[in-house]
């Protein structure tokens, strides 16, 4: 008897949860579906849901008309480049803070965090002018540097919380067994640090890929990543919904997959370890 009630309850909650989940996901699903329609079908009323002539022409045309791949490459260079550079600087810093903490380590960490709180718009003017003076408007170099600095506090923090979990005793044990510093790093520390570094890499690529303040304000066409390229569809003459959908689908698909893989790290990275 009790069992029947729980199954019923489970069924009820399952139906509610799936309804809510599908509703929230609907805009994404709708974008994907529309990307396979013709322009005429995309704006048709009543809308067609699954039974339309599926076509790939939008994907072909987005590439031919606006060189989609170039903007995608810009996105890749900016997000991966800024994250890798950030890791290069952050790994030693987080490492030393986690393994040889001093009285000031906590203050430094908090200060780094506080730089993240600076609203971008507060420094729009100087950054824009500096780029102009250096001839770096609409260039990838400027964006890689800016996004790297923007995400550096998050990278240091995430790495710090991961490194903190590596037990220091293991290092001592390796040292007692006569391991040199080089061996210690290669055989003992790296295997334990790699998962943390990988999650940090993933989350920060996602954040940089979707960044839409500096990418919109500092690029025009040459260095425009996907965020800025998609924004160009906002002009009234750019109302091609099927093409917009195709471009959007390509822009969000890789990051959606990466995001799904990194959901756990997301919480940790974005709350600076305050919620685990």
């Amino acid at each position: 008897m009790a069992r029947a009630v729980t199954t019923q309850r489970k069924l009820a909650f399952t139906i509610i949860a799936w309804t809510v989940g599908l509703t929230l996901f609907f805009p994404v699903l709708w974008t994907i579906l529309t990307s396979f329609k013709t322009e005429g079908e995309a704006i048709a009323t009543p809308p067609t849901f699954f039974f339309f002539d599926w076509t790939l022409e939008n994907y072909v045309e987005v590439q031919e008309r606006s060189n989609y791949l170039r903007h995608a490459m810009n996105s890749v260079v900016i997000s991966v480049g800024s994250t890798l550079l950030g890791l290069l600087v952050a790994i030693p810093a987080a490492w030393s803070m986690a393994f040889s903490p001093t009285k000031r380590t906590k203050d430094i960490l908090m200060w780094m965090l506080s730089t993240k709180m600076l609203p971008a718009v507060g420094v729009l003017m100087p950054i824009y002018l500096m780029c102009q003076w250096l001839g770096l408007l609409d260039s990838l170099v400027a964006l890689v540097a800016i996004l790297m600095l923007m995400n550096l506090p998050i990278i240091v923090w995430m790495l710090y919380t991961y490194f903190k979990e590596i037990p220091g005793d293991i290092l001592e044990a390796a040292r007692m067994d006569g391991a040199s510093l080089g061996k210690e790093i290669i055989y003992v520390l790296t295997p334990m640090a790699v998962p943390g570094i990988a999650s940090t890499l993933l989350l920060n690529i996602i954040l940089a890929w979707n960044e839409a303040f500096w990418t919109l304000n500092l690029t025009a066409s040459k260095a425009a990543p996907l965020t800025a390229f998609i924004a160009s569809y906002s002009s009234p003459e750019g109302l091609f919904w099927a093409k917009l959908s195709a471009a959007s689908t390509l822009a969000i698909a890789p990051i959606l997959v990466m995001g799904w893989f990194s959901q756990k790290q997301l919480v940790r990275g974005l709350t600076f370890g305050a919620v685990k």
Partner: protein
Amino acid sequence: MATKQTQVTAKIMMSPAVLMLLAWMIVPLGMTLYFSFLRYNLLMPGMEEFTGFGNYEFFLTDPAFLEALGNTLLLVGGVLLATVIGGTFLAILIDQPIWGRGIVRLLVIAPFFVMPTVSALVWKNMLMHPVNGLFAWITRGLGAEPVDWLADLPLFSITVIVAWGWLPFATLIILTALQSLDSEQKEAAEMDGAGPISIFWFITLPHLSRALTVVTLIETIFLLSVFAEIYVTTGGGPGTASTNLPFLIYIQALLQYDAGTASAGGVVAIILANIVAIFLIRMIGKNLET
């Protein structure tokens, strides 16, 4: 315990990150402060002169400022309300024993990974368009007159779009906190005859208070800087109906080339964000000690 040598090594390892962030903070901040006291228009180079608090006076007495400030607070408040309440319900829903929980979770968190320009344009065109949008089709189906969302309710529409993107964030964090709740406590309360509402009110909610605070503070920091969603949908309009503080500063800076006023506005935005940041940093700092 640490020897002198390791301390020196630690300092060297830390210095690139510290120096870079220091430069990233001080140089632009100093320049913003400096510009904010200058009459400085990018179209008239070489005409800069000191104006004291002139730019601040101009920016703060502009009627658009008060409206932008109001819009900023409404946007932040609206999105917070929707995501914190919605996120709590969603998290509790997903935490129930259901079939396909993993998939539901994936569906719910997906919006967070959609870049702001994509989500804004998809909502603006395919959902909220007054003629061909899906909402218009539904309203007509219900026999009502379609709403021109972004023209008639611009700030509300932008709030909806932004809230859609941030709901997963709130849900995910609340869910993480929820899963660390001791189930024995709940069972004990159930045995004592507590109903689901009193369990939620007296056990679940207090347990979530920390996560809810973190969600509120972090979202506030990000929501104070909403930009792309406004940029591609309404452009701040009609009039200034959906202009928030970042967008107002952007207009001063890159559309009117008034570097002085834009910088004064930037300083105002920084002060506003810092009020929130102080609370957040204190909370995270406390957590670091334990």
